[in-house]
């Protein structure tokens, strides 16, 4: 089983330029941990000092914001796509 994590351009300097990373994680939380274990420099950009996903980073599972699902506990299935998008637009 594998899910794909899509990396925004701004994060790619921490992922050796990789735009996509594959993971065998079963939940969103595990997938993010997997990602930051592989690219430790990314860690503090994904989570804040309290270990929460940073306030200005939106995480989407397929097309849905994970806050409308079960948050970090949302479960993943084969072929799912995780998208990391900085929260910058609006108005």
């Amino acid at each position, binding site marked *: 089983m594998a899910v794909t994590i899509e990396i*925004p351009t701004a994060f790619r300097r921490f992922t050796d330029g990789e735009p996509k990373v594959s993971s065998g994680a079963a939940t969103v939380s595990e997938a993010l941990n997997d990602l930051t274990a592989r690219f430790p420099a990314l860690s503090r*950009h994904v989570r804040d000092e309290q270990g929460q996903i940073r*306030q*200005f*980073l*939106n995480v989407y599972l397929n097309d849905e914001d994970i806050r409308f699902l079960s948050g970090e506990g949302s479960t993943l299935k084969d072929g799912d796509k995780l998208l990391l*998008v900085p929260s*910058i*637009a*609006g108005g």
Partner: protein
Amino acid sequence: MKEVYYLRCRECGKKFANTPQSFCEECFSPLEVSYDYEALGKIARRETLAHRAFNMWRYSELLPLPEGFKPSHDIGGTPLVKSKQFGPSLGVKNLYFKNDAVCFPTLSFKDRVVATALVAARRFGFKTVGCSSTGNLANAVAAQGAQQGFDTTVFIPADLEPAKVLNTAVYGAKIVRINGNYDHVNRLCTQIADRFQWGLVNVNLRPYYAEGSKTHGYEIAEQLGWELPDNVVVPMAGGSLIGKIAKAFCELAHLGWVEPKQVKFFGAQATGCSPIADGVKRNLARFQPQKPNTIARSLAIGNPADGPFALRLIRESGGWAEDVSDPEIIDSIKLLAQTEGIFAETAGGVTTGVAAKLIQQRRIRTDETTVVCITGNGLKTTDAIAADFPATQAIAPKLEAFEALVAQQLEEGVRANR
């Protein structure tokens, strides 16, 4: 001369040179334009304003504009209307409406933000500009983009009000309709800005765009005779405007143009999309995003990018946030029109309705000066209230017909009053 403005991270404080970039490379928090206020204090003088036209460019020194900038449109400079009926009926003597429903050229406060964003777009060499929009912003980008010769593409939710779509299309802008709500459009635009070399005013040009909103605040202070109000009621969509009005007031106090004052900031949302108001009322550390369901489409942003900052500002200023239902929004649009002669779009119904609620709750004191921000024109959202005003009976062009009608209305009036 060295530029007096630069980009700065709102969370970690890291400084960046002026570039089309809207978030910090270190902590991914939003960037905003910051100024060397000491240098600004030497070049910006309140007295020089006396010789300038009343529009947003009179505050040029306080905006991120390149040296020698010449504006091509007289944007802003909207009326601050003292309430004659609405405020007094609630016991408030000093209540004002800042009326951006008549902002030039597209009848919303978005004309201000697009003005500063397109200056940045030109400076950074973009040929194509665009935005993700709930309507008003698309109108403003399309109009000013056309006037300034940009290729313009806007992204909107597919089910936007027809008037707002038409008011964009007429300027020749390309319109991409997205099957989804504004938050979906927004996410797509963030990805587009990542991929294409386009100047998206509220994405990669966002720091410069947002600064335009400050002029709404400068004008309020100047129109009050260079005094700050006690309370401001501001509509919240992405949550940016409320913070920029606060920034404007702080800057004026810092420059010594007004006496410093602890202004209370009150946020207004529609109940059908009220993530920030909900966060304030439930005292949440982080707001919960919502799926918008309201007629106030211009405020229908369920995941507001500046929500965290708005939440903090409202709390720290001693203000509050409230929300009103769709029927209350319609009633408030009618009330504002029928008491003050101002026809606001649904967002104006939201601020008016929320202002009344806050006064009734005594969160806004009746002996204080309060400004209610009207940010868009009612002609853009006629669908929302059309059902309340069915066509009246037509009569023959004869005096007898009119007399009969008067008699009939008199009778109906008597019956209605029984």
